């Protein structure tokens, strides 16, 4: 009798696959790693060999330098790769450019590690592909029924309404440097904002990388080139930490906007001094999490980083055996 924990089990370094001798998104340096996506808490430097999508490898190279690992093994979406007796396939997760679920097959058992994912459309990456499986290992960042992300186009429309309403002010949109920033820029372009978007220096390299991968971000300029008054009526995209930094003083009466799933909670917005919360997330909200589990109907649900308790409760109410995996070391990049 083959048990799922013989194929994948949690270890301090991360989720370990014994029959294939590799870790998925390990938080410490290991010999062999499969990386689901390029966010820093999932993709760390210093591993021996790294298997990931070409986009994710590219992102890691951009962030950590060309020697971030001893060997890189690119795997295109859908390409089955053998690791000893185990077969690994990377399938789109819809989270950020290059993000993937790791589908792990062994002796007729299929386990899917979702990595971080979302179900709605993202102009910067292909959509999540559901894969039938025996065990689905889901993230649960927004695993509480209060997290219901609205339509992102409506959120961007609110931002543009505010820009029109306050032409004498600038709008700084706090957005995580990898994925969120480029998605916001693309959404603004789709909404018809064709003016130059000013960007913080910390975003420039990843923006260029997205452009190289065919994501057209339109006219961008560093947020340092114009005089203060010229930023009136303009949109600036910056990493969240810069918004309350002295850096933001160069702009006229900035309206602090912040694009994150956490912005759903008013106290969070208030605590961060955000005037215009934009509820835009690269993670699945409660409805997406539950709909995905309902759609897959896995034999077992394992829940990792986030609010495991509520999602486990939901699964048990829907007769899906569920357990929380205590994996440590994953932060939430939207914080």
């Amino acid at each position, binding site marked *: 009798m083959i048990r799922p924990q013989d194929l994948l089990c949690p270890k301090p370094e991360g989720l370990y696959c014994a029959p294939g001798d590799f870790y998925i998104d390990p938080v410490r340096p290991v010999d062999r790693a499969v990386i689901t996506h390029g966010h820093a808490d999932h993709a760390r430097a210093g591993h021996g060999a790294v298997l990931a999508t070409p986009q994710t490898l590219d992102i890691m190279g951009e962030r950590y330098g060309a020697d971030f690992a001893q060997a890189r093994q690119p795997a295109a979406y859908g390409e089955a790769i053998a690791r000893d007796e185990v077969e690994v396939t990377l399938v789109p997760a819809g989270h950020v450019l290059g993000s993937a679920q790791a589908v792990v097959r062994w002796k007729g058992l299929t386990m899917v590690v979702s990595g971080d994912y979302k179900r709605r459309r993202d102009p910067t990456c292909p959509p999540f592909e559901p894969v039938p499986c025996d065990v689905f290992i889901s993230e649960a960042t927004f695993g*509480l*029924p*209060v*997290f*219901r992300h*609205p339509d992102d186009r*409506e959120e961007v429309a*609110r931002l543009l309404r*505010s820009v029109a*309403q*306050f032409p004498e002010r600038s709008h700084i949109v706090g957005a995580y440097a990898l994925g969120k920033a480029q998605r916001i820029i693309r959404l603004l372009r789709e909404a018809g904002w064709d003016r130059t978007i000013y960007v913080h220096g910390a975003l420039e390299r990843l923006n260029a990388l997205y452009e190289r991968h065919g994501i057209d971000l339109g006219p961008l300029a560093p947020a340092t080139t114009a005089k203060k008054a010229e930023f009136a009526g303009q949109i600036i995209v910056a990493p969240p930490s810069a*918004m*309350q*930094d*002295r*850096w*933001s*003083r160069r702009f006229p*009466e900035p309206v*602090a906007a912040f694009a994150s799933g956490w912005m*759903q*909670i*008013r*106290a969070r*917005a*208030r*605590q*961060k*001094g*955000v*005037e*215009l*919360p934009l509820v835009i997330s690269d993670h699945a909200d409660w409805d997406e999490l539950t709909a995905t589990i309902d759609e897959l109907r896995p034999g077992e649900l394992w829940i990792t980083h986030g609010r495991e*308790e*509520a999602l486990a*409760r*939901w699964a048990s*109410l829907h007769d899906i055996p569920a357990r929380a995996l205590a994996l440590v070391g994953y932060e939430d990049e939207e914080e």
Partner: protein
Amino acid sequence: MRAFAELLDRLSLTSSRNAKLTMVRDYLRDTPDPDRGWALAALTGELSFDAAKPAFIRKAVEERMDPQLFRWSYDYVGDLAEAVSLVWPARPGANREPELSEVIEALRTATRPEVQRLIEGWLDAMREPRERWALLKLMTGALRVGLTARLAKRAAAEMGGVDPAEIEELWHALHPPYEDLFAWLEGRSDKPSAENPARFRPVMLAQAIDEAVDFAKLDPVDYAAEWKWDGIRVQAAHEGGLRRLYTRTGDDISRTFPDVLDALDDEGVIDGELLVIRDGRVAPFADLQQRLNRKTVDAKLMAAYPAAIRAYDLLQDGPDDTRGLPLTERRRRLEAFVARQASPRIDLSPMQPFQTWAEVADLRAAPPEGDPQVAEGLMLKRWDAPYVAGRPKGPWFKWKRDPFLIDAVLMYAQRGHGKRSSYYSDYTFGVWNADELGQRALTPVGKAYFGFTDEELRQIDKFVRDNTVERFGPVRSVRAEPHKGLVFEVAFEGLQRSTRHKSGVAMRFPRISRIRWDKPPGEADELDALERLLVQMEGR
């Protein structure tokens, strides 16, 4: 409803007054009748409903989802209306999203079971949590989005390009949804009539005098001086058989002070200070607080805290609108009017004769025995000026007595809001006291977030960043040791005992008056100094 929800959402997260004004003005401009009128009524606090209680909402949500999941959600969010608005399982298409006016109409007129059924249906139909949140806020009657009624009316005035005072004066003659008001603001009809008897008249306000600049330009002969009383500004109206008492913002407090209105025999409108006057002497402000904020009063309370108006202006004398007359003439009429009432409940604020500004300065520095000891300072009013609504520059000045000062040590700094969100601009300061172990330690005594220039703010911000000890979210604790730290000279208007503060004292109107870069924190004041001051003030 969606536009109103977006407005409430943005108001609740915006601290800039100008930005709020813009948001409300644009909403009123872009929203059709009658929705905008109902929104204005909600924003000015003119609506109150009791058809639906929050408890039913909790029950309704638990019928729709697992109660355990709801409990976790509520615990996480901390606010019932917000938690419900987020978790409510939407059934788009189940119903039509309501217009704001429909919601308000129902809340005003439907029976409780009907309202509950309607609210559940609307919550089902609404697509976004923001809308559900707005509906639930509206239902409970308290919007709490940090907007005063005055600011909402000002936004309406801006929208129509009229003087805010015109709207204030009309306000009590208007009824939601104010279609006549908007028709006038948009130039589609004449100004609605404000000729309802005993209405509120917008008040005239004073500028703070700038001693260094103003006195040199002012001739003492042109001005009258009187004490600035430490009560609340009121307007008492008796017209067409109706008697009304208003606060300076136009809130009707007639029912709280029937004793005062009874004394107003003649028809007219007086402007004055509401005080507790016992045996001919003004009692401390704390006595007046016993009478304020009560819906009704009984004879015992009225006898224990006898309220009175100390009159200083006359806006209407029988049939005559006196506001266009100069102060000399209004004062002559006021003296005659007050004398005719012949009641201890209405007396006259006496004028203080003087020849030079130096004499006024002496009065302010050393008020004579009796009531003037309780005054907050002096008022200077131009004899030839008419009574003009708002705060015109020149005719009226207030010259408050010098504030109290202490030297206190900066202990915590919090990031500001809006324009100041990149600065640590809210400061908690403390004075020295002996702790439980008898060690000299700082005790927080107050918080201030203004009184400094932009340049000083930059310097303090840098000090905070360079001397941070610990961070707690938006707050930093800073070094505050006898030889290392920052001393503020803090100005305040008074002290009260407080059980809410660890130090046992609370300051009225504290602000930073000077930054003492030169002073070592060890030489800042002791808590004893504040306690002595408190005893002194209570004995006054």
